[in-house]
């Protein structure tokens, strides 16, 4: 019988640890990976091409569907690019709202990452705990935009509307009696800001809870320490950004280094790792939970005390309110033009990037002066991270590939676009 040396193994696209639709062709020597070849594109929807055929505002919703666990951060990069080209200054209150929701989104994303990453390498409980907290934040999304996931809340010129004064309430049903409902509505009596504030009061204790389960857990450490080590130089060369880069010890965060919106007015720290392994990246993200919580609290305090517009007044970009349309001819014309044609963006090109929960999410926009973008290029952090999977998993065991996919925080909406 011929002796077998290397063989190839198909991992995914239906494997639950493949985080969506990753087809991974692994070349193995026994149980050791010698080459990993990710086949992507199974979720390719040509978002960039679709955006070319629509007025600017109609593509905001597509941005939600890129990285579908950090919706508002994607929108943020897109509206920033448009605002840069239009030369629009966003009202301060809208900037605070955006920052607050960016950080809520970061917590949402990291919760899903922790849930999935934990589940992949054997910590089932994490999944249940993380989804408990996600539920509250989804309610926040719903209260502000009407949608729990695909919010389309950010607009060029600000945000769609101001924060609601009242949280939606649960109602009694055959599954929940009045007593249950009263308990569930306890923290929903005030405004949205009160609800968020209540969440930030509770959340640090929850993070402690996760850490008790994982940080010193022997099994967790065996699965993550020294897995997928990336040196700082290598991380930069591979195009890593976000927690992947910070895990390797590079102190790089766009919120600090190239601040946008009001990040330069807020007080927060940037955690960095030392070894650049999966465990360090886990620790970095855990600390980001706490820092995001800190930012949200500062935003809530500011938003409580400062009121004002959340959209610019320029009706060439932003639709007028419905009331003025009823008696003002000009408002009616503006409304009609905006919804039948959209606005034209001056000729040129711009790149705008935000510190997305996964890394640097950038939009490169080319405009030829029309009401639709000429070219939109979405720079997704996950795309660069996944391309390094071969290098990171080389020499590791098959089971470690799952840990590495988990630590890269891959979401196929943004990788395939």
């Amino acid at each position: 019988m011929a002796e077998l040396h290397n063989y190839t193994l198909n991992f995914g696209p239906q494997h639950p640890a493949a985080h969506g639709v990753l087809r991974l062709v692994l070349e193995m020597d026994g149980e050791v990976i010698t080459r990993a070849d990710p086949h992507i594109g199974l979720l390719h929807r040509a978002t960039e091409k679709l955006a070319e055929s629509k007025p600017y505002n109609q593509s905001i919703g597509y941005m939600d569907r890129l990285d579908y666990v950090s919706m508002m951060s994607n929108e943020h990069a897109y509206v920033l690019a448009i605002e840069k080209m239009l030369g629009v200054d966003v009202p301060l209150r809208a900037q605070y709202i955006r920052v607050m929701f960016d950080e809520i989104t970061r917590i949402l994303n990291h919760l899903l990452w922790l849930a999935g990453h934990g589940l992949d390498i054997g910590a089932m409980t994490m999944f249940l705990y993380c989804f408990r907290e996600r539920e509250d934040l989804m309610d926040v999304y719903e209260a502000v935009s009407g949608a729990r996931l695909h919010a389309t809340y950010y607009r060029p010129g600000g945000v769609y509307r101001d924060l609601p004064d009242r949280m939606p309430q649960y109602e009694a049903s055959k599954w929940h009696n009045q007593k249950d409902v009263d308990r569930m509505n306890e923290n929903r009596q005030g405004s949205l800001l009160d609800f968020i504030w209540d969440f930030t009061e509770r959340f640090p204790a929850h993070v402690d809870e996760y850490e008790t389960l994982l940080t010193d857990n022997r099994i967790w450490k065996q699965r993550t320490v020294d897995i997928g080590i990336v040196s700082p130089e290598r991380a930069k060369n591979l195009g890593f950004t976000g927690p992947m880069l910070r895990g390797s010890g590079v102190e790089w965060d766009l919120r600090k280094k190239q601040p946008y919106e009001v990040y330069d007015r807020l007080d927060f720290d940037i955690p960095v790792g030392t070894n650049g392994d999966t465990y360090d990246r886990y620790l970095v993200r855990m600390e980001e939970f706490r820092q995001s919580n800190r930012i949200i609290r500062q935003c809530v305090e500011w938003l409580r005390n400062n009121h004002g517009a959340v959209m610019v007044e320029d009706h060439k970009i932003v639709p007028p309110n419905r009331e003025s349309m009823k008696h003002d001819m000009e408002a009616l014309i503006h409304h009609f033009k905006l919804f039948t044609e959209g606005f034209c963006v001056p000729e040129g090109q711009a790149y705008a990037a935000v510190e997305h929960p996964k890394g640097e999410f950038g939009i490169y926009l080319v405009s030829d002066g029309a009401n639709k973008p000429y070219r939109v290029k979405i720079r997704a952090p996950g795309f660069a991270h996944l391309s390094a999977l071969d290098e990171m998993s080389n020499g590791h065991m098959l089971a470690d590939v799952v840990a590495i996919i988990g630590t890269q925080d891959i979401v196929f909406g943004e990788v395939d676009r």
Partner: protein
Amino acid sequence: MTNIERLQTLQRRIGEAAGDAVNASSIELGELTVDLNVDALHEICKKLLSGENFAFDTLIDVCGVDYLTYRQEAGEQWQKPRFAVVYHLLSTSRNQRLRLRVFVDESSPMVDSVIDIWKSADWFEREAFDLFGILFKGHPDLRRILTDYGFVGHPFRKDFPMSGHVEMRYDEEKGRVVYQPVSIEPRVLVPRVIREEGYGG
């Protein structure tokens, strides 16, 4: 030094390092764009990575742009070569960004690969090849990446229709999936227009 002054210094230094290879460079919206001669790209990129005053250690993005219908609605015709490859560089040590652009013709859309300088170019170049048909000389593994296995054409070119050329369905008689010409009628909901500056007051 303000951001603009730093960019002007960088612009001057690139001019010195690249010499004749710079076709144009401009600072707009606080971003520096340098149009390079396609033959000199690889050599200049090497300098941009290792040069002390450059230190562009991260290649953030590579993308293709098809200028075929640029400003068509305004009755203008694109004069330069049809395709552009746009590189976005970032220096984490000097906290600066740079955009490089090279233009290539439709007849020979060939650019030197920068994969030996920045490893992150690997998939970005594969993507530009897949979607625009731009070839990267020296790339070790220039396969399609986002489109389906066996896909024909380069879908992000402006002359590729939005609905594509073929559609796929399950054929009951043959008992397998078959490809057939698309049955969707292309339609435009909002026409593309270019308005002059100050339109509508």
